[in-house]
């Protein structure tokens, strides 16, 4: 009787582990899309900021870029919640299977908390509650927290942070810190566009590498790991 129960237990675990292994392939692809959508969102945001600083821009041009920017950001935010939900679900299953990697989930509440923080930041900066310098420091701190959240989510998904994740997190941290420090020192944001292009390029590379790696990861799976499916 015990032997049979153990067999069933092993069988259920094996199915779960096989599902997790193949889900890594889907997660890589999902993160590839995530990096690509945010590279597009940051790029359009920087183009908007650059264009709005050029004197004599027509309202039509600005309106077009504002609407484009809102559209791209809505798509990016929507895709973010899809990818992060997948990450949390995968982490939960890995924990159930005791495959997880000595990393404690910081739960969905952290995501909600982060959204509240970002909203509060927009309100504080939008109604001029703080000086431009203080706004810069505040947004830099919030973006560091965002970067840490991305790092934790990528790590939760794959157990350890993959190279494309390191590139994405590092370029974001660089652009955030460098553009803020430069603004605090010079009082203008002339180099912001160029500095954030580092992140855009970094995230495009991360995206391409994720797609490439997903295909490679799948083709490396040997046929034995797919055996027993009927």
């Amino acid at each position, binding site marked *: 009787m015990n032997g049979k129960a153990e067999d069933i*237990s092993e*069988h*259920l*675990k094996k*199915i*779960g582990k*096989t*599902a997790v292994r*193949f*889900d890594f*392939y*889907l997660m890589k692809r999902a993160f590839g899309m995530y990096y690509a959508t945010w590279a597009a969102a940051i790029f359009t945001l920087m183009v908007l900021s650059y264009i709005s600083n050029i004197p004599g821009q027509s309202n039509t041009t600005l309106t077009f870029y504002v609407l484009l920017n809102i559209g791209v950001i809505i798509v990016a935010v929507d895709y973010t919640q*899809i990818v992060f*939900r*997948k990450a949390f*679900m*995968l982490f*939960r*299953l890995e924990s*159930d*299977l*005791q495959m997880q990697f000595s990393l404690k989930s910081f739960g969905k509440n952290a995501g909600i908390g982060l959204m509240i923080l970002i909203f509060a930041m927009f309100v504080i900066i939008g109604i001029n509650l703080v000086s431009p310098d203080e706004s810069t420091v505040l947004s830099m701190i919030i973006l560091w927290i965002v970067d840490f959240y991305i790092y934790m989510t990528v790590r939760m998904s794959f157990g350890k942070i993959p190279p494309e994740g390191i590139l994405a997190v590092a370029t974001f941290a660089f652009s955030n810190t460098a553009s803020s420090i430069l603004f605090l020192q010079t009082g203008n944001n002339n180099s912001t566009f160029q500095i954030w292009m580092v992140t855009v390029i970094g995230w495009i590379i991360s995206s391409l590498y994720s797609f490439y790696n997903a295909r490679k990861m*799948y083709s490396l799976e040997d046929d034995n790991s*797919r055996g*027993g*499916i*009927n």
Partner: protein
Amino acid sequence: MKSTARLMIIISLALNRKLTFTDLLTITSLGKGSLSNHLDKLREGGLIKIKTVFSPIGPRVMVEITEEGMSAYENYSKILKKLL
């Protein structure tokens, strides 16, 4: 759920909420006919919904997990916790 393939499909759908027929072919490594049979059984059990959606690269068969399917996954998750 008696079949390994069907449990694999439910787990993958629970993690991803919805997947294309092609994704499921890749994950399960089943043939098209065999996968269709498993999906039909899951649909009859009310665990999944199957619909055709239009995308820039043409129509695609999308498979989505239902609330009942999520409950089945939660049961599997509970069993795993008890076993380990």
